[in-house]
């Protein structure tokens, strides 16, 4: 049963990165849209994510619940040492979710919209930035459990070149996913579509550049990222496949195959996540002096069993409903 739980944990992290990521990315794209096109972009964006954004957000809750029910020691350690970035991410989540709702349900459209928009776009950027920082800090061995000063224990655990680089990498991946997703949403509006194609390309380049920065930062901070990704066959394979699909993507992006490019983009992100987590498995948090392993730090047997069943039963209800929701609002696109 522990493997069921771990699979769900990994899947919900991936789905949050894909669906929630595209959601955040939409806000980032809006941030980088020229003023004259912003209104139009906002409309496309709203039509695309309006019906499903609440659901996208749920994957984070599932992941966190799995973590604190199934792996309480790991959850507690992360909560203590990554308190500050977690808090910033939370503030981002609150600001973003409420601003998104407010700007569409406010009965009067006036200058308040300006405030909602500002909050929405900036928090859309900050949240994935810190999400990436948290993930990088968890696996890079920067958490020092023996630290004696406040800064060592609670600041430098996450505020370092490597974590920040991963943060920017995450944000640009989100923008990339969103742009690819939105290309398919704008079939009937050619100029809008063209703009998303350009955005997808620039986001892709941003992701490649920040990805390169991650490697450079890793060298400086002595984080063995090179080993993680290239030190083992599955990792090399995953990266090779991702690269191949990226080349295919650049070729297909103009061809109007919106489903194919979505699948490719999702595949690339899944491969990156796979390559970086495979080598660590079953360790999820790497400390300066050891590991917190999913296997060694799992909760009691009965808990894991109950959690596994809850997840399996839950997915029987959730997945069909979610697919039907997405399908329903894809079908009749205007």
């Amino acid at each position, binding site marked *: 049963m522990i493997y069921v739980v771990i699979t769900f944990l990994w899947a919900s992290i991936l789905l949050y990165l894909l669906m929630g990521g595209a959601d955040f990315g939409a806000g980032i794209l809006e941030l980088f849209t020229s003023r004259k096109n912003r209104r139009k972009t906002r409309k496309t964006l709203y039509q695309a994510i309006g019906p499903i954004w609440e659901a996208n957000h749920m994957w984070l809750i599932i992941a966190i619940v799995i973590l604190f029910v199934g792996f*309480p020691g790991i959850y507690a350690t992360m909560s*203590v040492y990554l*308190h500050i970035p977690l808090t910033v991410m*939370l503030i981002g989540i609150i600001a973003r979710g409420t601003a998104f709702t407010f700007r569409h349900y406010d*009965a009067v459209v006036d200058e308040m919209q300006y405030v909602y928009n500002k909050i929405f776009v900036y928090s859309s950027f900050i949240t994935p930035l810190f999400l990436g920082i948290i993930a990088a800090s968890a696996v890079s061995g920067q958490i020092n459990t023996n630290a004696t000063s406040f800064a060592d224990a609670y600041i430098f655990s996450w505020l370092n070149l490597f974590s920040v680089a991963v943060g920017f990498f995450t944000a640009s991946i989100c923008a990339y996913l969103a742009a690819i997703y939105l290309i398919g949403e704008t079939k009937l509006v050619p100029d809008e579509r063209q703009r998303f194609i350009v955005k997808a390309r620039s986001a892709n380049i941003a992701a490649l550049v920040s990805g390169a920065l991650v490697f450079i930062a890793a060298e400086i901070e002595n984080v063995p990222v090179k080993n993680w990704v290239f030190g083992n066959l599955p990792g090399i394979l995953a990266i090779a496949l991702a690269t191949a699909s990226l080349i295919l993507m650049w070729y297909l992006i103009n061809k109007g195959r919106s489903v194919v490019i979505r699948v490719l983009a999702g595949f690339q992100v899944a491969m990156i996540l796979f390559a970086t987590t495979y080598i660590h498995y079953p360790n999820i948090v790497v400390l300066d002096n050891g590991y917190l392993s999913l296997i060694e730090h799992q909760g009691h047997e009965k808990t894991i069993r109950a959690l596994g069943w809850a997840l399996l039963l839950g997915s029987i209800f*959730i997945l069909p409903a979610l697919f039907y929701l997405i399908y329903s609002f894809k079908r009749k696109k205007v």
Partner: protein
Amino acid sequence: MNDFIAARSQMALSLGFHIIFSCIGMVMPFFMAVSHLYYLRTGKPVYKNLTKAWSKGVAIFFATGAVSGTVLSFELGLLWPEFMKHAGPIFGMPFSLEGTAFFIEAIALGFFLYGWNRFNKWFHWATGVLVGVSGLVSGILVVAANAWMNSPAGFDYVNGQYLNIDPIAAMFNDAWFSQALHMSLAAFAATGFAVAGIHALMILRKRNVEFHSKAFRIAAIFGTVAAILQPLSGDISAKDVAKRQPIKLAAMEAHFQTEKKAAFVIGGIPDEKNKKVNHAVKIPGVLSFLAHGDFNAEVKGLDAFPEDQHPPVAITHYAFQVMIGLGMLMMGLALLYFFALWKKKNWLFSRWLLRLFVIATPMGFIAVEAGWTVTEVGRQPWIIYGIMRTSEAVTPMPGIVYSFYIFTAMYLSLSLIVIYMLYRQIRMVGTLYDVPEKDTEPQNAPA
């Protein structure tokens, strides 16, 4: 303010706001579904307009409830890591199920809000009902988790070790039923009265009277029925608390000395130093009856427990008094309303009755906050009753006080925006909702 107090304040603040957002988000879908049903049955546009207007409220409160709930699931770890380390695997079961319920709610809400004229009308209606039902289920599950902190079950505590964990037994702890029942009824009563009060005010001001009258009736029925049932569940809770947490009951009633034929204390100022209550009205025997069903039964006082286990008596006592007082007032108004329904048609929309409802608008939510204070403050100094002290659970990270300031500012501004938005929704009723059928799409409505 030290870090421990800051952590407690931040938790109290987050829960205090979440409880209001989520109660409304949980109950309003039912109002919306009833109005929607009337529309499907009668075809009257006013009900469709009302359904749409209320669904805006549902969307706003669902979003604020969802994000504030997300914050709480992280804050449990951020503020109380030592608690979560041990308690997570034991009381986590309801949270994992709640994830499912909440997910379904989010999906159903997507269908409902964007599903007008897209689906079979009964399917569309059912998704609205599902929003309410799954919201209620997640509310019950979260309360079951909180109940575990009051009534730890599903494990053996041996020499500081948590052994033989049984998450199912933990979920069905002794307190879950009475707490969940009390909280659900409270949510219905509070939201019903609050919504009815706002619509009553609009009727009094003669704005869109037909629209607001329909709204008032639906909300008032939910609120008043819940308010009449609530004292019954209160009685179940009292007997339950007397059995499980006698020290909490003693604090609620500022009952310092163990005695038979214990008096029910109304009002008064507890004097913790001299262990007595001043200026209170005391009704002999009633506390014994409420707690044990016998006027002569012995009720344990605070003196039966070591001092270092006493909860803050004054806060618990005042909060309890506020909850009971407001509950009684609401029940009185509910009875009056039923009398009006039954007896005199012309009473129903008489100005004085509507005015009473306007006055009652905030009562339910003040009672909810007070009741929650009784449960939480009354459990102190324990985070897991009788097992772990709150002070042992707090995060080692210093500087929590700044985090408390940030969250306070955030929740305050969030609440102000929500209130401002509701005010605008209500002010715009005439333009957006109470209009002939063909113009019912507000301009900024989702496509």
